[in-house]
């Protein structure tokens, strides 16, 4: 599904990712854990194709296709979805308008028909109900005045509607209370399927009690320094990142 090999990436001339390699298989849920500033968000941005990041070495291959030359919106249409650590507000653009624009933009790129309005509304209603997103929220400008938890739920709603091949969740658990966390996790779990993968970036073991990962990777100073199964997350919870930070330094 996703193969990252020896990835080196700079921002403003500073190297943040320093030879990162990672493979995520179809249907796999991979957790990325690591201390603050280790490059977790940077990894998600580079995979999603954000401007301003310079890849100096290595490759990112999605389903056999090198995606490094593609623009962000092209990668989105190929099935890469990023749930942002800090979702953006788009004043004046209602959530409904935004969702429709996004869904149809991806369909257009893939050469598919645009959604009819009734079909679109049906899909949004169904997904919103499951995630506890109210009709009122859908009518408001996207993320404007939403609480932290509402914004995260809105990210998951978008993920459900856009049906990605690989979803990267960047600290989607931060700022969520336990009920919201459960709803979000259920949303993710409902999407798990043999041909969809997840990269779950988190700081805490807590989320992984709800979204049980197939693999856990420790990111430190721009590299994956240890990989294991879900037990690794528990170990990190107990001992912290001390050992790995030292290793990397």
């Amino acid at each position: 599904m996703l193969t990252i090999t020896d990835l080196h990436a700079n921002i403003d001339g500073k190297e943040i990712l320093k030879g990162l390699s990672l493979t995520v298989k179809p249907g796999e849920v991979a957790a990325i854990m690591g201390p603050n500033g280790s490059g977790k968000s940077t990894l998600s941005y580079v995979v999603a194709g954000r401007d301003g990041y310079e890849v100096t070495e290595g490759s990112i291959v999605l389903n056999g296709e090198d995606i490094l030359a593609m623009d962000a919106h092209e990668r989105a249409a190929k099935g890469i979805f990023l749930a942002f650590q800090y979702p953006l507000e788009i004043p004046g653009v209602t959530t409904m308008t935004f969702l429709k624009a996004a869904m149809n933009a991806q369909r257009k790129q893939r050469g598919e028909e645009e959604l009819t309005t009734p079909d679109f509304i049906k899909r949004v209603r169904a997904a919103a109900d499951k995630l506890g997103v109210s009709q009122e929220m859908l009518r408001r400008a996207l993320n404007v005045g939403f609480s932290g938890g509402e914004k995260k739920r809105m990210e998951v709603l978008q993920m459900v509607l856009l049906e990605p091949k690989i979803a990267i969740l960047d600290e989607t658990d931060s700022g969520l209370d336990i009920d919201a966390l459960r709803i979000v996790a259920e949303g993710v779990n409902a999407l798990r399927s043999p041909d969809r993968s997840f990269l779950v970036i988190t700081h805490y073991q807590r989320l992984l009690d709800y979204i049980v990962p197939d693999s856990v990777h420790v990111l430190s100073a721009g590299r994956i320094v240890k990989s294991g199964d879900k037990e690794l997350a528990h170990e990190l919870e107990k001992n912290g990142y001390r050992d790995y930070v030292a290793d990397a330094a």
Partner: protein
Amino acid sequence: MAAVQETVDKVRSVEVDAYKYGFVTDIESDMAPKGLNEDIVRFISAKKDEPEWMTQWRLDAYKRWLTMQEPVWARVNYPKIDFQDLYYYAAPKRSPGPKSLDEVDPELLRTYEKLGIPLREREILAGVEGAAERRVAVDAVFDSVSVATTFKAELAKAGVIFCPISEALQTHPELVRKYLGTVVPVTDNYYATLNSAVFSDGSFVYVPPGVRCPMELSTYFRINEKNTGQFERTLIIADKGSYVSYLEGCTAPKRDENQLHAAVVELVALEDAEIKYSTVQNWYPGDSEGRGGIYNFVTKRGDCRGDRSKISWTQVETGSAITWKYPSCILRGDESRGEFYSIAISNGHQQVDSGTKMLHLGKNTSSRIISKGIAAGRSDNTYRGQVFAHRKAKGARNFTNCDSLLIGDTCGAHTVPYIESRNASAVFEHEATTSKISDDQLFYCMQRGLSGEEATALIVNGFVRDVLQQLPMEFAVEAQKLIAVSLEGSVG
């Protein structure tokens, strides 16, 4: 950063040059010689078979104009206009005016098609059966002479007069004489005075007391003759307790020379009357080097003459090389209300200096100004607004909100408010913000599948939403498209 820069570059290189309405219609003109003097003024008046008082009115304006100086206070730069190098009269060659739409030059109908005038309106223009449900009357001003007028009968039934002003001078001279120049006096400003001397044609609307105009009135203006200054004159009168909504939309063919447009629009609202005036303006802005394009120096003013009257201006400005335009309201009647909703988009090398004036004269008058300026490319976008309360304007209230959005870092946005209150009980509120489309927002939208241009258009449409909502439905849709077209790289 790079995404924004790329958008800006695309906008600059692709869109501006590939201006989709850049074409020229070939209709022979019956033109007066170049230049301006008393004889030309008399020629124009004679061509239209005007009453003697009208000829004299024009001549007085002309003499006044000779003593005036071109204003220099606006934040716009352009080469000096040689007023002797312009034509002041041009008309499609067609001796007696057409009796019906069937007689309209097919070339003109094709022009409407290229302009993307909505199908139903083209049907109305083409006289298609059933198109009447739309209930939008189109009085097409093609160059200087109106060649198509529709829905006359239905309007006449309601007692509404909607016709070219040249026709009104023949059929209702007393009404024209009573109101013409009472809102924008002959002496008002350089361009308005020039317009008074040489105005070609325009629309005339009179809504009788207590009548709610049964349809929205709509005019498409075109500028079509080479080097022809266009001097439209519009006069709208809403008598006591009446209501009218008027839509004006413009596009223009591509040109090498700059073209001057100096229109005057006068609105008069008597007691309890309401006038809603909406404009979508999309004149040729010039090429990517800033060559060509329309100079749009317009005087638009509404007079809330009666108590409890209301005038509301809504405008979407995307075109012209230079825009100099301040639709204003004189709030003379007690409890009268003025509104100004504006979206002004500048791109390429465009220069926009626009805004409004709200002059509070009566008691308990109120006004509201919502202005959204969007600057991209190397353009300059200035909001200039004046709010004034007279000594007697007890309880006057104004709310002003001016937001500017910058796209890229080679453009400029400026806000120049003038606020003056001579009555202690007046309450004026002013809010202003300037923001940039952030790289974060662009990336967020692109991550969801929108291209950089689509993302920019979406964010801009959100930014202007408050104003778009003020437009009549069909205009709002058109305006939204126009905004996308003027900012996206995609053409057509």
